[in-house]
């Protein structure tokens, strides 16, 4: 089995100027599922909860406590829709990565598409993948062939030259830098909006330019959050995908033993944990950035300069950085 992992999402088909990628497809399915499933639970909500409602309430209550304890009653309630949406979307999107079929159901693309075999040196040949012209013609579903060509002795992956390109039909949405960047930009925008709404444009600038010579650094700091938020989430989810792919390939290579069958279980459990942690980190950072931006000038001066001084951020920020 060749390990087919591309850093960028593959374009499934072209829709006007928009190349519909596999991560986009998964994103739409995930969003629809979340809205339908949770919307259905919420629609039938009763004062005495059913089991499904209990689960949803557990999540909602956890998030509500989080925003109210961090942002206060007023700001917390205002950012709750965004923070809650971010957390639930990221968490459940990350779980798609461990589902069977995500990343292993392939579209057979045209044979003349540029084939690329991605193995251990995945980042190196990102450019070799031709993204703009691989429309999936006659989208025939084909479950990944299990013809593993890994030599067990050396553990090196033989690069098999296939005549045709394999396009995974589904890809975890957050393993797409566009998705994480979109969310980070939204967060950044909401932070600025909250800051301006609380203090006005002048107040926001004064908030950043205090002391004045730090203003450029503060601005860079603000913008760097976009990169840190998006890159952290993308890196974690993508690395999780790579990890699972490699583990599956290794397990496939060990043909005679029973133990390898259980090896992926450990990593699936870890990915579940990481998925939740990353969702929490993204949601919590969004919450904290907005809270800091809209907080009054007095008292939170130091926190604005350095998030690490904030008692609530430290633990999660470091745990996020550690992943």
């Amino acid at each position: 089995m060749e390990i087919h992992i591309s850093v960028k999402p593959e374009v499934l088909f072209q829709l006007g100027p928009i190349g519909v990628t596999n991560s986009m497809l998964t994103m739409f399915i995930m969003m629809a599922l979340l809205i339908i499933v949770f919307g259905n639970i919420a629609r039938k909500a009763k004062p005495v909860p059913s089991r499904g409602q209990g689960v949803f309430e557990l999540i909602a209550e956890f998030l509500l406590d989080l925003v109210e304890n961090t942002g206060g009653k007023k700001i917390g309630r205002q950012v709750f829709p965004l923070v809650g949406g971010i957390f639930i979307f990221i968490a459940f999107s990350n779980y798609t990565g461990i589902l069977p079929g995500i990343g292993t159901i392939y579209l057979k693309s045209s044979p003349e598409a540029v084939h690329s075999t991605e193995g251990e040196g995945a980042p190196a040949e990102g450019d070799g993948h031709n993204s703009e012209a691989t429309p999936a013609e006659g989208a025939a579903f084909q479950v990944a062939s299990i013809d593993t060509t890994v030599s067990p002795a050396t553990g090196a992956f033989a690069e098999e030259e296939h005549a045709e390109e394999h396009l995974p039909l589904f890809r975890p949405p957050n393993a797409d830098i566009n998705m994480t960047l979109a969310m980070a930009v939204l967060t950044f925008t909401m932070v600025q909006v909250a800051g301006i709404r609380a203090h006005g444009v002048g107040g926001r600038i004064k908030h950043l330019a205090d002391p004045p010579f730090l203003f450029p650094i503060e601005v860079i700091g603000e913008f760097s959050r976009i990169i840190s938020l998006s890159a952290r989430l993308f890196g974690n989810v993508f690395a999780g995908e790579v990890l699972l792919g490699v583990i599956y390939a290794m397990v496939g290579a060990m043909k005679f033993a029973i133990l390898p069958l259980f090896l992926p279980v450990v990593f699936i459990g870890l990915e579940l944990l990481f998925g939740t942690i990353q969702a929490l980190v993204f949601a919590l950072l969004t919450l904290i950035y907005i809270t800091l931006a809209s907080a009054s000038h007095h008292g939170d001066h130091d926190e604005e300069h350095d998030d690490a001084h904030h008692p609530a951020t430290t633990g999660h920020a470091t745990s996020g950085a550690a992943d």
Partner: protein
Amino acid sequence: MGALGLDLWGFIVQLIAFIIFVWLFWKFALGPITKVLDERQKNVRESLEAAERMKAEMAATAARNEEILAEARQQAGQIVAQAREASDATLARAREEAAKQSDLYLERAQATLRQETEQARQQLRQEVADLSVMAAEKIVRKNLDKAAQAALIEEALAQAGN
């Protein structure tokens, strides 16, 4: 940037999709559940407060009952004591009255007795004197012998005795 798969249209589509998702998710899922949670919290708080109020009310009622009972008990004791006192007084007075009355009667009776005795004695004295006079007259008139004289006195005495 291209190596990471950055794509302007993809970015725009996913940004808009995410904004719409957050809005829809809030409108149809998270918002209603939050409302349910808030309502439940309010209900629980109100019920607890009502229970607390009820408890306080019950305690107040019990205290008032106790108070009323104590007051009633005290009043009853007072009434009984008063009644006993009154009856005692009445009894004493009656006894005194009776004693006084009986004394009065006794005194009056004794006075009457004394008077009558005195009267009787006076009368007797009178009569004895009359009789003696009468007897002396007879003796003088008849001049009788000693024996007849004695018999006459005897007779007169017997008459006087009646």
